[in-house]
């Protein structure tokens, strides 16, 4: 193992500069900057236009989500998870729901499992489309953004059809889904699947062999596999270095082991490889969605929430007929359920990397502690390692290629 990689703090850069001990210049980038993808602040130490050191300063979007969850019952906290990684709310819902389900030890019906896989894969595509659009926008390719958002709107329409909301769906609840999929769900998804592969080709036509794009991305922001692992880099950023690690294969959840898909990997670990990996991932996601749609059609209608009445309320028709069911429903939503004392950790492959959720229960209806291993936050610490010795303009491309979501970084 080489010498440990350290991440500087803003003070380590600012203080010597104020004291006049350095020849370099300190530049503040953010928190209001068009290409920091939110409210990320970077303190740059520059020698001319060459980056000597970068210190990310996070917390400008700190929302106190983890703390607020401690004052909500387990069911109500689902709503908060949406607002963390706002490009992939369904992945967040899924991670939290899986962790609480592990704590409770409940079984999820097959139809809900398939719907979860299907919708999180659609979410992955929509998240990658935002990444693609904004990444290209940062490198001054405006049209890609307009194309990418055209398809994203179609995915959002599917989410709206399913849950009534475009972005903050809160559709995966503890024990299954919020309610059943609508009747026209499968045809709508199939309509989307029919056009999406050709649309991915369209994006690739615009960028993959574009000389300007290649000039800005090939050989820029390189990280080797060993350093990437040492820095905890995950997701497409890690796979671009050639490490084929994907939680969907390594530790399958929600039945991912039964779907056939590949893990696209890169070779050089530069921005271009990250781009190629994400583009290939979108194609793989389309493949998974196709399989899930077929399964959903074969399976036919069925329950979408667990039959465990300690977790899920009784079905609507029972509530209107039986007083006990009504009382049970009321108690479940006002008091919540009480998981056994203990803790549970679940990690899933979110569009940004390994998203982990750690829930600690003290036996009360409210979680004692909820912690999220946010991939964006951990991916950001590799920024300094990759940016050193490059130009400021490369840093802009580098941030976009890491695909951080500041809502998730700061939580």
């Amino acid at each position, binding site marked *: 193992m080489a010498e440990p990689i350290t991440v500087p703090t803003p003070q380590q850069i600012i203080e010597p500069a104020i004291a006049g001990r350095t020849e370099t210049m300190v530049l503040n980038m953010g*928190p*209001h*900057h068009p290409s920091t993808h939110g409210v990320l602040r970077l303190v740059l130490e520059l020698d001319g236009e060459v980056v000597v050191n970068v210190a990310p300063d996070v917390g400008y*979007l*700190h929302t106190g989500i983890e703390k607020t969850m401690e004052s909500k019952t387990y069911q109500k906290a689902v709503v908060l998870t949406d607002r963390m990684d706002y490009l992939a709310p369904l992945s967040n819902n899924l991670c939290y729901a899986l962790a609480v389900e592990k704590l409770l030890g409940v079984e999820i019906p097959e139809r809900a499992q398939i719907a979860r896989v299907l919708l999180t894969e659609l979410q992955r595509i929509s998240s990658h489309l935002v990444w693609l659009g904004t990444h290209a926008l940062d490198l001054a390719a405006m049209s890609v953004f307009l194309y990418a*958002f055209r398809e994203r709107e179609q995915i959002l329409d599917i989410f709206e059809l399913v*849950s009534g909301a*475009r972005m*903050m769906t809160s559709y995966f609840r503890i024990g299954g889904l919020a309610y059943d999929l609508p009747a026209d769900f499968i045809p709508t998804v199939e309509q989307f699947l029919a056009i999406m592969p050709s649309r991915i080709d369209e994006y690739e036509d615009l960028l993959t062999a574009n000389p300007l794009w290649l000039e800005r991305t090939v050989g820029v922001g390189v990280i080797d596999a060993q350093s990437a692992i040492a820095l905890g880099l995950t997701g497409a950023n890690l796979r671009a270095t050639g490490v084929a690690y994907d939680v969907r294969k390594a530790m399958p959840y929600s039945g991912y082991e039964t779907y056939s898909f590949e893990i696209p990997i890169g070779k050089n670990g530069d921005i271009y490889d990250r781009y190629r990996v994400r583009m290939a991932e979108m194609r793989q996601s389309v493949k998974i969605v196709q399989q899930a749609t077929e399964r959903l059609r074969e399976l036919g209608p069925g329950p979408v929430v667990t039959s465990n009445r300690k977790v899920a309320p009784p079905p609507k028709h029972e509530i209107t007929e039986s007083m006990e069911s009504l009382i049970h429903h009321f108690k479940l939503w006002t008091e919540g359920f009480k998981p056994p004392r203990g803790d549970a950790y679940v990690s899933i492959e979110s569009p940004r990397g390994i998203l982990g959720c750690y829930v600690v229960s003290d036996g009360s209806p409210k979680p004692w502690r909820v912690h999220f291993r946010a991939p964006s936050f951990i991916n950001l610490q590799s920024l300094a390692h990759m940016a050193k010795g490059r130009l400021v303009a490369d840093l802009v491309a580098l941030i976009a290629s890491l695909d951080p979501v500041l809502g998730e970084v*700061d939580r």
Partner: protein
Amino acid sequence: MGIEEKAGNLGIVTTTLETVVNWGRTNAMWPLLFGLACCAIEMMGAQASNYDLSRFGMELNRASPRQADLMIVAGRVSRKMAPVVRRLYDQMPEPKWVIAMGDCAACGGIFNNYAIVQGVDEVVPVDVYVAGCPPRPEALIDGIMMLHQKVMREKINGKKEAPIRIEHPLVQVK
């Protein structure tokens, strides 16, 4: 071509100074490129192909506050971010307007806790509040058009109207 064919030879037009100035301000209103959280994605959606905010002359986002007329506060404002928001507002030249997009910017939304400023109107004066979590692009466009109407009513003496609140009924779920 254009208006001449319809209205004949427009040698002289009589109008009020207020109308001309306000008309000019509404049709070239440049928003500040300023996204905070989830709502920023819907703001991007409003500017993208499907909703096409450029129909209202609003597609040109300026990253520098010194070139912007309109601040769309899209997302939750944390206590760490609040001074930055105020500073950006102060750097914008007059006349300037603010839209509080989404529940968090309007009143703190679901985050009633230590970290989030309970409404951006604690920091900057707001002209239009758009409800929603996040508001749909249509709702944002509705808010922007309402701001345009408000600007058209503005007096040359610089007196400002009271803020407008746009509330949308909750989405009905089957």
